[in-house]
């Protein structure tokens, strides 16, 4: 696979330089890999920090801004950031009311954020952490590192970000983030593997006429390989996997997410099938977001995330947000 890069080793630094040029409203420390709201620290506001391996753009750096994250810490491609990054970010954005770490549940992320929390606490910053583990494809959690964190991260960052913006204290922001993280569910499907700059060839071999169900966002193969399906069939399989065990009744927020290589034309068409599948199963939809938000480099495919939405969550969802990748309200 050909890539629009200079050398693999410099991909993340190059991207941060390019992001800095496009977003003067962000403060980007390219060498230290910390992306911070230009107006941080925001007085009287709990600060939100997330981060993780690169290759999932716009997650997380594209969600830094008013109403969402105060800082993001990008690691190497598919590699969790190092503790120093989050510790530095915490120092930069803490207004005294503490910071919330939003951590996707991967061994590397968990360990590095845990070490960062210790470092930040040593510096007197109050740190709370919430783990996002929304991927229902990983079922057998006694025998795994637990569910992966994927599309649900966007809901946690947006909703907790809005709560922080409203002035909620750290415990409130944390408990809301945890509530959202616990309620979100995601399921992903790959039509192709992705190619990391370091490896330069697809991370797994997916022949024409087959797809992978239950993939994560790190180019790892999924749980099951199946003959190619139509978008309607993929929507049915995904929605069934998501609804299995989901408490029913209220409306949901829906994220129909592209993995990076699937055109928006196809994503919108897939959304039509997801909406049909939800309607057929009597699940009311309150809000829908369609686009490439939590990606896996150039992988073709999609994921669906459902977030049950009560009145408070809908209010927080609709609250203004102003980041490179998500922007509405005023």
């Amino acid at each position, binding site marked *: 696979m050909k890539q629009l890069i200079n050398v693999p080793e410099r991909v993340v630094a190059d991207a941060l330089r390019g992001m800095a040029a496009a977003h003067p409203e962000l403060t980007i420390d390219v060498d230290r890999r910390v992306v911070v709201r230009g107006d941080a620290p925001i007085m009287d506001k709990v600060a939100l920090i997330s981060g993780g391996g690169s290759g999932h753009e716009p997650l997380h750096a594209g969600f830094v801004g008013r109403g969402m994250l105060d800082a993001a810490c990008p690691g190497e491609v598919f590699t969790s950031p190092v*503790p120093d990054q989050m510790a530095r970010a915490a120092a930069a954005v803490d207004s005294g009311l503490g910071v919330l770490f939003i951590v996707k549940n991967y061994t590397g992320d968990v*360990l*590095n954020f845990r070490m960062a929390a210790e470092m930040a606490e040593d510096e007197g910053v109050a740190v709370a952490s919430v783990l996002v583990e929304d991927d229902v494809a990983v079922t057998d959690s006694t025998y*795994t590192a637990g569910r992966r964190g994927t599309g649900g991260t966007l809901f946690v960052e947006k909703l907790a970000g809005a709560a922080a913006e409203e002035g909620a204290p750290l415990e409130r922001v944390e408990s809301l983030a945890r509530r959202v993280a616990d309620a979100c569910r995601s399921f992903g499907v790959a039509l192709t593997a992705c190619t990391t700059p370091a490896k330069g060839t697809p*991370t*797994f071999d997916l022949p024409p006429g087959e797809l992978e169900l239950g993939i994560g966002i790190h180019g*790892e193969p999924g*749980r099951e390989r199946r003959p190619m399906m139509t978008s309607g069939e993929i929507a049915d399989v995904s929605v069934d996997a998501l609804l299995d065990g989901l408490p029913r009744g209220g409306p949901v927020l829906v994220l129909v997410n592209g993995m990076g290589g699937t055109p928006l034309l196809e994503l919108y068409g897939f959304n039509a099938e997801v909406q049909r599948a939800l309607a057929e199963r009597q699940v009311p939809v309150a809000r829908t977001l369609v686009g490439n938000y939590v990606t896996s480099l150039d992988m073709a495919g999609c994921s669906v995330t459902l977030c049950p939405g009560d009145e408070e969550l809908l209010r927080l969802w609709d609250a203004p947000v102003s980041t490179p990748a998500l922007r509405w309200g005023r």
Partner: protein
Amino acid sequence: MAEPMDATVFWRWIDLTAADVAREAARLTELDSAIGDADHGSNLSRGFAAALDAVRREHPDTPGAVLTLAGQTLVSSVGGASGPLYGTLLRRTGKTLGEAPEVGLGELAAALGAGVEAVARLGGAAAGDKTMLDALLPAVEALPQGPDTAARAAAEGARATVPMRARKGRASYLGERSVGHEDPGAASSALLLAALARAVRDE
């Protein structure tokens, strides 16, 4: 070889490991691409190159100081699962060695045992989970019989991960499909122990 080892041995250990993981980076990444996310080779090359730099820059003059600095540098430069785990391994081993200017094989074995224990605690994994521990645990056990024996034990331990089903780290997401592949972290641990054996032998 029963002779006590000073800082230069450990310095050489870092140096040889850096060279070996750089040389084997593509293989490690290939292993990681089968059951993980295809970054283990670049992670460790980056980390040990940084560790070597740090050691060259700061000239730590005891075995414990070399390993502590190397471990700290891994934590600050690798990321991923392997950064904190390998970083903790070397740091805890170094801390346990204390400030002695020379250490014997028995002391090293005990200290490495403490390091491996810290890795197990941090990652919550046990023998048979298909992780680096499956190479490290037998190596620690064998180390009193000499670094070469330990290196062989690590290599065997790594090979033994092939039929295992992963229960920790990314490979666990694959369930049954993780069977039939060597664990990349176990493979790199075998490299680490082989480098130790050479570092001691070259003395």
